[in-house]
């Protein structure tokens, strides 16, 4: 019976590892390769932790299996009368301590580059591309007019959209993140990034994408019944396209839906 239970307890770790091995080919893994360096470093860090923890996982589960399989080591059938081992205690305290300390120091750098304002790339820090204000249940986006800088206070020339954030490709960009009502969280899973939007705070967030395309903006902090549908879209495009987008947005904003048509009509009649 002992061996049966040993196999029972050993079966599941093997299954768990097998599931993890086939996971990436089934799409049960990271959504796609992160399109920027820091995102990839986060993945690398994850993989490093995965290696370390897998070794520990296998080691401890095998040790557990071994002691279950082996049972008593005493010839007469009783149990080994032992209160422990001082040396073993010292070893298995110091060794994990070193590994854990190593892990926590090793990742400081990536963390600092993502989070500490003074470490942000200068061009991003000086010129935020947009202000993203979360509210139940949408993302409101405020851009400065082309050629202008984003001011902390809204300007008459500012451009607005909802749930549709555009940024240029291949360069660091910074947004100012706010919340207008409850707490939300600005999540870019494909970029491995998230930052809570906290009422009353303005939080700078920087990122970069080296490939053009569309990415999901996900609200990751419970913000009410409509939390699940608080979905936005990040469009990363070439600088020309981005400029054109802002121009078009400006044209649309300045258009009152009436005078342009009238002007057209006047121009038309003048031609006639």
């Amino acid at each position, binding site marked *: 019976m002992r061996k049966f239970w040993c196999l029972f307890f050993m079966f599941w770790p093997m299954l768990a590892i097998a599931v993890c091995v086939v996971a990436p080919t089934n799409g*049960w*893994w990271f959504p796609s390769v992160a399109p920027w360096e820091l995102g990839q470093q986060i993945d690398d860090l994850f993989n490093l932790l995965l290696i370390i923890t897998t070794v520990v996982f296998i080691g401890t589960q095998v040790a557990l299996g071994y*002691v279950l399989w082996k049972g008593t*080591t005493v010839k007469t059938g009783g149990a080994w009368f032992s209160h422990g081992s001082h040396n073993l205690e010292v070893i298995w305290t110091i060794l994990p301590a070193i590994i854990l300390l190593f*892990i*926590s120091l090793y990742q400081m750098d990536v963390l600092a580059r993502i989070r500490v304002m003074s470490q942000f790339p200068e061009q991003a820090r000086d010129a935020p591309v947009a202000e993203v204000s979360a509210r139940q249940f949408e993302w409101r986006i405020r851009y400065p007019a082309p050629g202008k800088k984003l001011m902390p206070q809204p300007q008459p020339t500012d451009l607005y959209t909802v749930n549709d954030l555009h940024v240029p490709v291949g360069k660091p960009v910074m947004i100012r993140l706010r919340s207008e009502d409850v707490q939300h969280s600005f999540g870019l899973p494909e970029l491995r990034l998230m930052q*809570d939007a906290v009422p009353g705070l303005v939080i700078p967030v920087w990122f970069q994408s080296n490939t053009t395309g569309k990415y999901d903006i996900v609200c990751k902090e419970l913000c009410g019944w409509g939390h699940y549908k608080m979905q936005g879209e990040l469009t990363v495009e070439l600088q020309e396209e981005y400029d054109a987008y802002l121009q078009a947005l400006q044209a649309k904003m300045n258009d009152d839906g009436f005078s342009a048509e009238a002007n057209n009509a006047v121009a038309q009649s003048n031609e006639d």
Partner: protein
Amino acid sequence: MSIATHDTAGAHSHDDHAHGGHPEIGFVRKYIFSTDHKVIGIQFLITTLLMLMVGGALALAVRWQLAFPWQWMPIAGDLEVFKDQGGIISPEFYTMLFTMHATVMIFLVIIPVLAGAFGNFLIPLQIGADDMAFPTLNMLSYWFMWPAIVLFGISFVIGGVTAGPAAGWTSYPVLSAIASAAPGSGAAQTFWLLAVTCVGVSSMMGSVNYMTTIINMRAPGMTLFRMPMTIWGMFITAILQSFALPVLTAAGFMVLFDRTMGTCFFVPAGLVVNNADPTIGGGQPLLWQHLFWFYSHPAVYIMLLPAMGMVSDILCAFARKPLFGYKPMVYSLAAIAGLGFIVWGHHMFTSGMNPALGMTFMVSTMMIALPSAVKTFNWIGTLWGGNLIFTTPMLNSVAFISMFIVGGLSGIFMAAVPVDLYIHDSYFIVAHFHYVLFGATLFGVFGAIHFWFPKMFGRMMNDNVGKLHFVLTFIGFNGTFFTMHLLGVAGMPRRLADPFNYPYLEHLLPLNQFMTYSAMLMGFAQFLLLGNFFYSMFWGPKCGRNPWNANGLEWDAPSPPPHGNFDSIPVVYRGPYEYSSPLTDKDYLPQTEYIPPRPQPGTT
């Protein structure tokens, strides 16, 4: 030495003394408003087992929505209240479901089953006392659970199925602080907060009592380092509770005031929440997170340390071996408790607090994995070379080790802040805490129920049914929760009523369905436990004082122990784990057994 001998005459006189002039206690005083720690413990146990089924039903409803979004809900779908929405789970109801699931499981199951049920039942028995230090306070601590249960119940049903407590168990403001932020949650969220206060009062009464009892009422010879690990776990938990809980209670009142009286502890100015006055403000939502996690991080250990202790006892009893490294086990418990107070910020890595603060929290969090690792190694060491007996409690305890390893290791991923920026608030977190809270704690509790049941009722539970329950739960558990790590890595956020709204998550639907089927299996398996429990209570085979041949003091008392517990005050001669000692021919050596010193060869 006369008190050390177990003659029945001594027992008799003790009994007479205990009941003095009141030989008869009425039914109500004996079983309902009882001040006997054993009855209170059993009351807690039965209440929490029933709450476990309630919490489980809520969880299954959550799982239903994740596997079959917006589809007619089985069983409950036919109820009148769901008519308006066609028998489906609305997003509002989904939010209530996971809020109440977590609330019930944490405040009405895990915390009270450990401290309330086993703490009450075991502390006096294991330290050799006749009752708790403050029996009436003890009774109140149980009865303060009921206002909480009623208030939680009211908060759940008051608004029908479209409005209720909707801010998650973490209740982050501003969502929880301004009633109009979650329409309809008005009174419900308020009742929810009051209920949390009541469970807090209940726990506080318990902790004060446990600390006093353990410090003052130990039997002669029961030095601190002869206490079983269960007692150490309960003791340190009680200390954690009494330091951390006041913070939560105060914070809870602050939100309550924000909601009902317009104070603005957590509400900054300039918000445009539905119709709320935008000019008020001046508060800071992050303050709540600091206060809440200052309690709730220690609380996750409140939900674990007693189970760690009980599992240590069970493992020794069925490995017939002393605990490997008793003192390191005690010190690591203390280290967890100490470090537990300086890591709360790891729940706030993405909250926008100062990154420098985040870094210090990262280091302290990494370090708290260390005592956890030391404990794991020592448990494996305890089994090493043991004369293993695979009873139901033993199987559950081995599962505890195996599952705790996973929960501890996944904690490391989240403690690494850059990685947490991706997996925070995803299903990876959900996997992590279910591995520790269910995989470890609840399996430990299952083990403890089967282990101490004979002492509680003087009857044995059926071992085969126990094993079947264990196997099904274990399979269902891993099927449900291991896969959640993968969902988390694939980026699926928690708390979404319909994650498949997002194109990048659509392909995860089949995996979610598999998890839901596993969860159903696990849910049904719990009826085996309940059936076994209540059947054995009345019809299980009778057992003697010490059915497992274990060492602890509790096995020295009759099963079930009478009012006043022991025949005579026990005297303790050694630690609780002297199994297979060469000093005797039996493979166990109870703490109370006196062995005359052997004449030393060469002397005389």
